[in-house]
């Protein structure tokens, strides 16, 4: 009954949605407002104006850098939120300690060896994705995620203690906050030097500054993203 009602309601909902969709500018048209208003400028002048050949990177880090600043804050928020929910509660409210039914058999030597072997290569790939983001598909998020996946892989196969060595406890909090902090640092630098928050030098002579700042931000995002992903994974008990 509930299902039938829901379906009826959704069909009713879909009608106006579909009608509105039919009135939108045709899909793929080169004359639609979306394609003729702002994006032409990004496409034409992006690489020289914003500093990266990948125009998407230009948009993310430069034209709409503040969005990304907010976005990394969202990731940070999600970490804080997960910690807030999962960190052990008050006494008597601790999470039930599960008796390990049997000592889980450690993964076979072959698996452990392969993971150890893969580690450096995955890391290198992550670094490549991060620093090449401005000329090819890629960037901080993607690279950070790849590295985060490596940390998770190591946690699962070699144990959390090994994985945690990648993020020493002393600097872990800084690493987790790396992405927003990098943004704030670069933004304030821009404010101080060029008069606007997150401003990059426009001057052609300073193109190297622009590129290196972009790189710094990418690395910051990458490091922060990896740290947060692994922290969330650990907190959720992914190692159990």
């Amino acid at each position: 009954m509930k299902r039938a009602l829901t379906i009826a309601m959704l069909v009713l909902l879909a009608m106006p949605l579909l009608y509105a969709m039919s009135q939108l500018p045709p899909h793929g048209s080169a004359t639609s407002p979306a394609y003729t208003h702002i994006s032409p400028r990004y496409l034409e002048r992006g690489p020289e104006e914003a500093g990266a050949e990948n125009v998407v990177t230009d948009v993310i880090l430069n034209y709409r850098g503040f969005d990304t600043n907010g976005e990394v804050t969202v990731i940070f928020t999600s970490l804080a939120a997960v910690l807030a929910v999962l960190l052990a509660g008050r006494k008597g409210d601790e999470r039930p300690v599960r008796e390990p039914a049997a000592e889980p058999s450690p993964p076979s030597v072959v698996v452990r060896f392969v993971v150890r072997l893969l580690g450096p290569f995955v890391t290198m790939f992550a670094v490549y994705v991060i620093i090449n983001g401005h000329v090819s598909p890629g960037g901080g998020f993607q690279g950070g995620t790849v590295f985060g996946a490596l940390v998770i892989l190591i946690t699962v196969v070699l144990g959390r203690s090994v994985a945690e060595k990648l993020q020493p406890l002393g600097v872990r909090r800084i690493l987790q906050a790396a992405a927003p902090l990098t943004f704030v640092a670069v933004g304030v630098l821009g404010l101080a030097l060029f008069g606007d928050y997150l401003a990059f030098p426009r001057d052609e002579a300073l193109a190297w500054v622009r590129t290196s700042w972009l790189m710094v931000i990418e690395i910051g995002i990458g490091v922060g993203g990896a740290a947060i992903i692994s922290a969330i994974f650990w907190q959720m008990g992914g190692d159990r």
Partner: protein
Amino acid sequence: MIAMLWQNIDYVGSVVLFCIGLYCVITKNNLIKKFIGLNIMETSVFAFIIALGVVDGGEAPIMGAGASAPFTNPIPQALILTGIVVAVSTTALALSLIIRIYEHCGTIEADELREME
């Protein structure tokens, strides 16, 4: 209207997906399934916005040697990159909550939880 809809079939697809997701959110009893429904809705909206950026025959908007116009619109891609991150963050929190609810109540079925209240 049908012709226009056919032309915008990509958008129609996201509407259908949106409704499927909403259906899951409303009718599914299992909290994780509910949340998968929400993820389907998210995907539908992302697909819609990405589809807005498509231009016929467009290539990825990466300049440099060998690149030739037309390029697809970079803005929706940038937006959805942000959107995905937001969705992932929400998912992380939702899963954490579900873990806790399971630990407390031993179930994640909405009707059983309601009875416990």
